[in-house]
């Protein structure tokens, strides 16, 4: 057992949990769900609701499982009569003034109060119906949230969300004790780009979505796992639809990408995408007017044009396409037609793929699959090159896939004048209106596939609703075109396309890795050679230096010796001179003395 793991026993099951986890989290790992309101995986622990009571041996009272950390040799019981009695009592208190308006409450069906009442409560209320205290109902807190104070259980999840996740501190609890209530600061509406999460965070019906309010009951909808296509973050969502109409997006938990959250922009993005300005049948441009034609005629025309154009074909993809569509599109343009005129960048947004718009989720690149397009090398030709050759009349056929070219590149009008353009578009964009042939394709929630988010995480989305009118899924159209062109293609679903795509990507990664390895080897060899040369140079330098030093030293020594000799000689000479002079002086003195002696005598 490593030091970071703690051994505990929950309901007789021994398990090891990482140090610092709560009993509730540890119980979850072995499939024991402890009821709770205030605990949320992506928020801090608060312990306000008291619903998660468990019995821990050697503890005097019941403990809240959500904020009791695991301790060595802890023995926890989650289903004893004492615990169940406590939960019943907690529920009775929480439901004391609760209005029994489940029939009109939007939370009904996904409400924890309902679930736990059926599981633990089931008492008869001691509160007379007319003795219940009434509080504010239908209080609008900004654009996205409606509050009902009667239903609130004061778990403070919403307050913690505004403090910890969005950082706006928009909500607070005012007053104390029985008078406590959730409110905004100064009663101002919530201005929070993530306020759409508040109804999701609320475990009961106190906060409901203003946009989804009364649209549909929760149990009637069909849910599909999908990915938000609002920006390059790629938040995981659940699409709830009723009778082929999308009703709402809900954040789906993915701790690596968006935790449980969604931004308001992404949450409401479906409304426009699903219904506004949809292209619902193939149209052909005839003398300025768009005339509807059948898919069969449209396919026939497209195939004729592609066969005729051959390698001179050009393709303009977009970062809104799924990886599967991109892959099929690339295969069609590059491998089948053998054309290098492939591009997806209509503007410079792709450079922002990793740029954050704020500190929570949003990114500046508003395309879901820029990373995927870059990985697949969709940007080959350059948009100016395509524009130029189209202007010169070198491109007989241009396929534009889900790209509003005219909106992003106003000077692209020349393309539409000189080239036969086939536009695949889910809506009647400027480009689709200018196209010689416009084909209606599905939005991302009407098809399946994968998006690669900014960090390179490939995430699958599934079909939630059917497209309007005669729209077809984009990948199917591309697959059919290639099958008609006798390409050896047998894709049954996007999953098989993803498989083929993965193989190509893996091969590419492999070749890149090999190239890198070769480069590395070359660099290593170069570095080694360089080092050797350097060493040799160093050695030579050192030898030279040594020789010079030696020479200098020798010279110095010689000079010193000579100098010494000279000094010695000079000294000797001086001494000799001195001696001679001395002798002379003595002699003279002696002479003088003798003379004086002689005089005196």
């Amino acid at each position, binding site marked *: 057992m490593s030091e970071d793991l703690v051994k505990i026993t929950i309901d007789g099951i021994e398990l090891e949990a990482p140090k610092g986890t709560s009993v509730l989290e540890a119980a979850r790992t072995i499939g024991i769900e402890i009821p709770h309101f205030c605990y949320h995986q992506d928020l801090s622990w608060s312990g306000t609701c008291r619903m998660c009571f468990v019995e821990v041996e050697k503890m005097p009272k019941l403990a809240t499982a959500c904020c009791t950390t695991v301790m060595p040799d802890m023995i926890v019981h989650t*289903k004893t*009569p004492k615990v*169940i009695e406590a939960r*019943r009592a907690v529920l009775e208190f929480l439901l004391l003034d609760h209005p029994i*308006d489940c*029939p*009109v409450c939007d939370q009904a069906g996904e409400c924890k109060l309902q679930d736990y009442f059926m*599981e*633990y409560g*089931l*008492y*008869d*209320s001691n509160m*007379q*119906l007319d003795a219940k205290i009434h509080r504010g*109902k*239908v209080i609008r807190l900004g654009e996205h949230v409606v509050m009902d104070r009667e239903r609130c259980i004061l778990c403070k999840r919403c307050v913690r969300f505004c403090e910890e996740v969005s950082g706006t501190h928009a909500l607070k609890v005012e007053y104390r004790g029985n008078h406590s209530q959730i409110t905004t600061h100064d009663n101002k509406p919530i201005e929070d780009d993530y306020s759409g999460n508040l109804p999701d965070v609320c475990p009961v019906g106190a906060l409901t979505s203003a946009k989804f*309010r*009364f*649209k549909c*009951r929760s*149990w*009637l909808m069909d849910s599909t796992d999908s990915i938000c296509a609002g920006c390059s973050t790629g938040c995981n969502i659940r699409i709830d639809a009723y009778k082929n109409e999308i009703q709402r997006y809900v954040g789906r938990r993915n701790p690596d990408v968006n935790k449980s959250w969604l931004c308001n922009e992404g949450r409401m993005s479906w409304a426009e995408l699903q219904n506004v300005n949809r292209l619902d049948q193939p149209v052909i441009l005839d003398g300025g007017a768009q005339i509807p034609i059948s898919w069969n005629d449209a396919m026939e025309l497209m195939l004729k044009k592609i066969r005729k154009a051959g390698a001179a074909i050009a393709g303009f993809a977009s970062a809104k396409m799924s990886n599967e569509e991109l892959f099929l599109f690339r295969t069609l343009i590059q491998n089948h037609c053998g054309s290098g005129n492939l591009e997806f960048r209509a503007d410079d947004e792709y450079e922002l793929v990793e740029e954050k718009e704020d500190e929570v989720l949003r990114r500046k690149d508003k395309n879901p699959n820029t990373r995927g397009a870059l990985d697949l090398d969709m940007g080959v030709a350059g948009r100016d090159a395509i524009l130029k050759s189209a202007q010169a009349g070198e491109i007989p056929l241009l396929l534009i896939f889900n790209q509003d070219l005219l909106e992003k590149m106003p000077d692209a009008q020349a393309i539409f004048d000189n080239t036969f353009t086939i536009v695949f578009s889910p809506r009647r964009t400027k480009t689709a209106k200018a196209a010689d042939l416009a084909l209606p394709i599905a939005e991302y929630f009407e098809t399946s596939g994968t998006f690669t988010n900014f960090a390179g995480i490939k995430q699958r989305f599934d079909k939630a609703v059917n497209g309007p009118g005669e729209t077809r899924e984009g990948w199917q159209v591309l697959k059919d075109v290639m099958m008609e062109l006798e390409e050896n293609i047998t894709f049954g679903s996007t999953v098989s396309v993803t498989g083929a795509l993965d193989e190509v990507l893996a091969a590419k990664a492999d070749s890149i890795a090999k190239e890198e390895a070769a480069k590395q080897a070359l660099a290593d060899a170069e570095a080694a050679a360089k080092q050797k040369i350097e060493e040799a140079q160093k050695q030579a330098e050192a030898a030279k230096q040594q020789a010079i030093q030696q020479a200098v030293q020798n010279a110095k020594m010689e000079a010193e010796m000579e100098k010494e000799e000279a000094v010695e000689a000079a000294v000797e000479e001086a001494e000799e001179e001195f001696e001679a002079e001395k002798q002379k002086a003595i002699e003279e003195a002696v002479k003088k003395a003798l003379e004086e002696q002689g005089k005196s005598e």
Partner: protein
Amino acid sequence: MKKIVNPKSKGYLIEILNGLSVTLKHLLRRDIATIQYPEQRREYSDRFRGIHILTRRENGDPKCVACYMCQTVCPADCITIVAEEHEDPMIEKRPKSFEIDLMRCIMCGFCVEACPKEALIMSNDFEMATWTRDEAVYNLNKLMGRSKLAVSGLGFRPYYDEDQSSGKPTMVGPGPKDSFRPVYRDMLGRVDAGKLEAGTE
């Protein structure tokens, strides 16, 4: 074994007379089952499941709060509700449209049982033949203002202790309280019998 009559023996005349005597007997009977519909109408049970009625509040609005319980429980999928906001926050929700497709309806009465507000009950009216299909889809107005109700009377509904003799086109005011109480068991399987008996609202 039946005796086969020989046609040549003329014995069949006796059989014809036998048959005619049965006819004559019924001709002279006083207690005939046939009634002169539509001038005459049979009395139906109070639990007869005829065309639906949406009951009203005292101000004439529908009692319905658009909770979708009836739509959810409907096995024939014949109820379509669109909800909207009610200006009164204590009511909160009301039906913007409420349609029952009587061509699909199988008259099972589940919707009446599911309704938490006694907003949907049934009448004794069974005459739902129409000239067009559209007429058979009853909307909010048609379900609330039922002109033939005076003739047919109320049918299947949650409570019968009020005297609903006949001919009341709308049910006004709150109905009697819930007299049915399910036996709940908690997780330990205990039945809280004492509380269940004592707890009357």
